[in-house]
């Protein structure tokens, strides 16, 4: 159905990029034609009447018709039929926007004042959204504080991000009509702070706005959505997820610490969280619920990560989730935990320490 409608751009609208954009733009154009017609009709009549029926004498008192039920019903029923048609058309278009196809690829958008964080199916996270073309994409929307909204004008869709509930938005962008291609390579660039940027030059990029007022920097809460070909997406995700390559394990672990959410329970400054602080954890004895005491060495930490709650440190509830970690991730995290202890081999120079957590 949507394919039948060629990519029609609405009058005064941005490029129609998503698969449902054309249907919206068709309706947009229809409503515009209706509006222009009625505006012209009203203003034309008004102008003509002013020209034709200007008062010539102060005492002119025309006694024309002042009631006509047929006319009243006519000009009530005609607009009624038109708006009903617009309602049905609008609702149909809305339903296709509101119902994500079952085979959608799912992403997660987490927002707070004033940032976006996107989680990919493999657990990788960035502040920009990269998705493949030609495939329905569903984004689960989550807010940590106030209401935000996910809005990409070219996609013609918008959804509020309401704290305390999960709203969803979906879209599909086809590669061919939008010129999305893959030139076979992801360009890697090292930024001044040592982190890396991965660029797929065949991808298309669209501005993503926060559309619900959220305070001071609401107008700066913008990000980009990149549409890649499936191939380009795979290549980009592989490269970007493989950001550890070439980084020392401590730095990788430091990044994983926030990326995997360890920071929500384990502090770096010794303060108490849901789990033990990582400050001076390594190399120090831990009291276990079994009554034993064990020194937290590499093997101890490894078991604590891979089999959460299996050892049971006194004073903490068994609430740690099992994470989806690669072998190298575990090693990197251990290296980072070691760096946070005065019994560890690494000098304590990581910026994470300066910032607390």
């Amino acid at each position: 159905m949507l394919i039948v409608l060629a990519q029609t751009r609405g009058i005064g609208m941005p490029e129609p990029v998503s698969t449902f954009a054309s249907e919206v733009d068709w309706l947009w154009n229809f409503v515009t034609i209706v509006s222009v017609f009625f505006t012209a009709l009203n203003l034309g009549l008004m102008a003509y009447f002013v020209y034709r029926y200007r008062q010539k004498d102060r005492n002119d008192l025309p006694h024309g018709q002042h009631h006509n039920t047929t006319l009243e019903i006519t000009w009530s029923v005609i607009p009624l039929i038109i708006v009903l048609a617009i309602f049905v058309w609008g609702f149909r278009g809305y339903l296709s926007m509101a119902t994500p196809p079952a085979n959608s690829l799912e992403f997660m958008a987490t927002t707070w004042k004033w940032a976006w964080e996107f989680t990919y199916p493999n657990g990788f996270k960035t502040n920009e959204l990269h998705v493949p073309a030609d495939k329905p994409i569903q984004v689960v929307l989550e807010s940590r504080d106030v209401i935000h909204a996910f809005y990409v004008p070219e996609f013609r869709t918008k959804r509020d991000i309401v704290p305390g509930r999960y709203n969803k938005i979906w879209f599909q962008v086809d590669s061919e009509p939008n010129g999305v291609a893959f030139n076979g390579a992801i360009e890697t660039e090292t930024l001044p702070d040592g982190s890396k940027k991965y660029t797929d030059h065949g991808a298309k990029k669209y501005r993503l706005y926060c559309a619900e007022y959220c305070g001071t920097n609401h107008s700066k809460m913008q990000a980009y959505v990149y549409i890649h070909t499936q191939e380009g997406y795979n290549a980009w995700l592989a490269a970007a997820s493989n950001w550890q390559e070439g980084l020392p394990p401590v730095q990788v672990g430091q990044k994983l610490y926030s990326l995997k959410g360890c920071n929500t329970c384990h502090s770096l400054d010794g303060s108490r969280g849901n789990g033990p602080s990582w400050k001076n954890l390594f190399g120090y004895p831990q009291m276990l619920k079994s009554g034993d005491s064990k020194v937290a060495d590499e093997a101890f930490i490894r078991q604590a990560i891979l089999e959460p709650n299996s050892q049971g440190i006194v004073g903490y509830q068994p609430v740690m989730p099992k994470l989806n970690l690669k072998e190298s991730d575990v090693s990197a995290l251990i290296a980072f935990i070691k760096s946070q202890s005065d019994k560890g081999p690494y000098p304590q120079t990581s910026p994470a320490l300066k910032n607390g957590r």
Partner: protein
Amino acid sequence: MHAHEVWESQYMSATPQSIPTDIFGKPVNPQKGDSYLTHDRGILSWLLTLDHKRIGLMYMVVILASFLLGGIFAIVLRTMLAMPGANQANHASYTDEQLAQISVNNDFYNQAFTLHGAVMVFMFIIPAIPAILGNFVLPMMLGAKDVAFPKLNLLSYYCWVGGGLFFVWVLGKGILNTIFPGMVEFWGSGGLDTGWTFYTPYSTSTGTAATAAVAGVFILGFSSILTGVNFIATIHTLRPKDMGWFQMPLFVWGLYATAIMQVLATPVLAITLMLLLAERMLGIGIFDPALGGDPVLFQHFFWFYSHPAVYIMIVPAMGIISEIMSVFSRKRIFGYAFIACSSVCIAIIAFIVWGHHMFTSGQSDLLNAIFSFLTMSVAIPSAIKIFNWLATMYKGAIVLETPMLYAMGFIWLFTIGGLTGVYLAALSIDMHVHDTYFIVAHFHYVMVGSMMFGLLAGMSYWWPKMFGKMYHEGWSKVAAILIFAGFNLTFFIQFIAGSLGMPRRYATYPPEFAIYHHISTLGSYILATGLFIVLGVWIHSLVRGRPAPANPWGANSLEWHTKSPPLHANFEKTPLATDPYDFDDWRWDENVGGYVMNENTHHEEKTAQTK
């Protein structure tokens, strides 16, 4: 001679007498020259007055002052949006220090747009027509001496002044604090940066003085409720003996529909604001998800009031346009019953469309469909009104005086505002333009353009009656044309910015939107110029205007059946009902510069005979 030359020779050559006359064109006996303006003297005779006309004028002063304040901030916002420095799209390239500076600017912007919106909505758009013109004209249209509860009327005025001053004080402090940070120690923190909508959980978590601001709106709301109660009672009980419901002037119908909405909807706002206070001050979880509440519930409550409020703004303006269309076409209003019923119809529909403000909030598809359908239905009574006004002009004898210019401007703006409402009611289109400048343009067309044009039409129509002075017609027309041009330039361009995706409430924006903002800002300056000319025309009229005749326009509703300005008790004798749209008894009198009643038809007798 061409038609317009005939017209000009008739109009411009008039050299009317400068002596006040009664409705028959006879000079008024100086002993009987007393009017409500001169009846009592001294400041207390104004501040403690129970006279609906004086209360109307006192409302005029404070409401126009609010309009000036809100307008100044409109110009501040438009100027900020036009300045290149406000455009910080490439914020990644800013240093921390610059970002801190920008952040201050953004806070200023956010507080400024909140002040603009909140002052305009709560203190200008909602009260203006009922409180100024309704108070002044309604009892006279009914041939009554005053409203049903004059003391309640004064109480509602002081609720307004108290709530309004407190509200402006709270919001103004915050604005001044962002400019002069040192002042916080002097008068404490304040301000409001939630937008006029107070959406939770932002409003429950913001550091600005949302609690105090909400209290101010709460008090303002009582003023609105009291006025509504008063008008309902007045219309029910104080109509002249032979004025049935369908003999009332259409402005009275408009005020009646408005009053019903004020009385039924405003308490919901009051309750919502109380719940918000309970959450902010006592930590009871109602709207904040962190406390187990639901933020979308707030939006339902808020719009259950605020959507009817939109019609509280426009329905009385429609009543004014109905009066003016008939009087200045010199012809009976077309489709009286349809216009009257469409006002009531709009008042009813107003209560069942609030959900269209939450189309993107994640409410269920079924709810969205129902609200979309119901919202579409608003188009019908709106279309009925517009077509009936046009039919009134058809084969009339159209007089292009200032009130008529504003009334025709109203039809233009309301047509555009109403039709863009159809875009927004269509669900799939709304998903795109929701919370963009398209919405901003739409509600400025309906709420501001239409309501402001209705107010200006009504002010210029009843001005001679209110102050007993005519105003300079030429400058007044210049102002009307400038306001019209400026308004369209300011806001039409915003439809395009919005459809291209410019989100609302943005202090900064991507560079591709700059051109639209520049044009819009230029328009706002023209609009402001026009409004200042209106102010000048009014002041000039008060100081040097020629005395107004009792009936300068040849209208026949009862307020024109007494001299200008009216007596303290409005009429010398309690008048009998007349047909407000039958102008046969009035003829133009060159010497008076207005219409005088035919001496051989004594209107009371005539009315008595025909009944």
